């Protein structure tokens, strides 16, 4: 009884060699072989030979529109951002070869942390080498043995792994269910440390959490609140600070986790906070200490990108237009979508099953459109999804083109 990761079979004994530790993957191997044996193009082995822009690439030899890259604000080819990276590469070299707490803090790392403090108007910012490590590090370090973590059942893998690493008592509640969350908080023994973990936008269906109500309930029971805003930064909220800003609860939240690998357009993760003792995390957080810091070119591009995102209101408005147009277009074509109304830059198209989902994915890629195929156990309710993430650089014409590729593929596969 645990999270939905596929459970191992009884390992088979191999004569003379003991157990093959890989036999636990036999189910996954069989599933994959079954899918590919029909001649299906592999959805998890795509190669981009050339990237032409934030919205176009040559994938498996074809000119392809990118609709599954989380490159929400299209910063990856911004001339200022690219130039900052080149300059840092020339001035500081290819890498730091060290931990942030030893030789791995350069001027650029301090500058990107300052950019984050300015972006969120918060007192502290700590940059990790990836978004995964930011969740892993912060959660496992602040919630330890004897503490309680109350979290949404649809939380991202990096959150679950952070919970497991810290050995706190983990108490999940039904997705976005305020009452279920409150019941669990109420039952936690008096005096125990409490952390509530929520996400602004849930990446599988692209739906938003009712943060106004949930954060209020968490505070009522004296819990600290951590919100992962990976999929909303730069886009949701008047200043792009995320759903916490849009819901008016940013001052009640203790920690915001984010990433550079989506709207910011490079790689890295971070946590911002107003907690007065926050800086001690730099010494006690193992996923921060025991890894090399980001290369100077990466922090330079991130810093420039974050500062440009502060003035991105026109781009934000265009991204909303794209999201609404795609949602309406797909709905009108007869596709089943993850949300009734567009709530973010993610539009999830629900497939009847994995076979048809994979066939649809193939028809799309052959038609020149890349989306993410998401399948169990990563998806809620064991759904197969074609996940579309829009970019502020998609033109109105491209959204029209996307819809006609969807229409053709949907009819070919027989889904619409």
């Amino acid at each position, binding site marked *: 009884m645990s*999270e939905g990761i596929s459970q191992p079979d009884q390992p088979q004994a191999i004569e003379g060699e003991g157990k093959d530790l890989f036999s636990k993957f036999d189910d996954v191997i069989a599933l994959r072989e079954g899918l590919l044996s029909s001649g299906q193009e592999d959805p998890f082995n795509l190669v981009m030979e050339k990237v032409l822009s934030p919205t176009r690439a040559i994938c498996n030899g074809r000119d392809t529109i990118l609709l599954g890259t989380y490159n929400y604000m299209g910063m990856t080819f911004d001339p200022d951002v690219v130039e900052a990276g080149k300059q840092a590469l020339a001035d500081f070299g290819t890498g730091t070869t060290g931990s942030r707490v030893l030789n791995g803090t350069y001027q650029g790392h301090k500058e990107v942390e300052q950019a984050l403090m300015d972006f969120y108007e918060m007192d502290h910012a700590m940059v990790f080498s990836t978004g995964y490590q930011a969740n892993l590090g912060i959660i496992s370090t602040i919630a330890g043995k004897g503490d309680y973590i109350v979290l949404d059942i649809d939380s991202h893998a990096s959150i679950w792994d952070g919970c497991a690493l810290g*050995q706190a008592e983990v*108490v999940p509640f*039904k997705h976005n269910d305020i009452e279920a969350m409150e019941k669990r908080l109420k039952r936690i023994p008096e005096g125990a440390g409490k952390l509530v973990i929520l996400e602004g936008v849930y990446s599988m269906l692209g739906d938003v959490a009712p943060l106004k109500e949930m954060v209020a309930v968490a505070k009522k029971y004296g819990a600290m609140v951590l919100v992962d805003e990976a999929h909303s930064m730069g886009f949701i909220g008047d200043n792009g600070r995320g759903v916490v800003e849009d819901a008016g609860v940013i001052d009640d939240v203790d920690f915001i986790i984010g990433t550079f690998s989506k709207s910011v357009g490079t790689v890295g993760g971070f946590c911002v906070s107003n907690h007065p003792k926050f800086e001690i995390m730099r010494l006690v957080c193992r996923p921060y200490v025991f890894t090399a810091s980001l290369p100077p070119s990466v922090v330079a591009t991130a810093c420039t990108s974050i500062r440009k995102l502060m003035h991105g209101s026109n781009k934000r408005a265009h991204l909303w237009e794209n999201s609404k147009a795609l949602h309406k277009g797909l709905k009108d074509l007869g596709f089943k979508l993850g949300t009734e109304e567009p709530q973010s830059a993610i539009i999830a198209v629900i497939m009847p099953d994995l076979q048809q989902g994979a066939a649809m994915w193939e028809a799309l890629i052959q038609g020149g459109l890349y989306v993410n195929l998401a399948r169990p156990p990563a998806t809620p309710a064991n759904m197969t999804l074609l996940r579309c993430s829009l970019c502020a650089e998609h033109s109105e014409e491209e959204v029209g083109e996307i819809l006609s590729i969807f229409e053709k593929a949907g009819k070919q596969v027989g889904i619409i």
Partner: protein
Amino acid sequence: MDRAEVDTKIRSLIEPFNKKGVAIKDETTFQNDLEFDSLTVMDFVAEIEDEFDIIISMNQQAEIENYGQLVDAVTKLQAD
């Protein structure tokens, strides 16, 4: 509530989740015999938690493989 009473309560709670009508014994496992997936587990655990006003954390759930272990755990938790 003693173990027998807890057993009776959980037996009635498990019914709607026992789609195949498996005969429930103490040795009946949730994963193999009842074929509960992660969503079923979450809903079933939530029902028990609400009924007995307890928390069964995922750490505790990891230790519970069969029906008898669940009844033991709930008996202990609701007595605390």
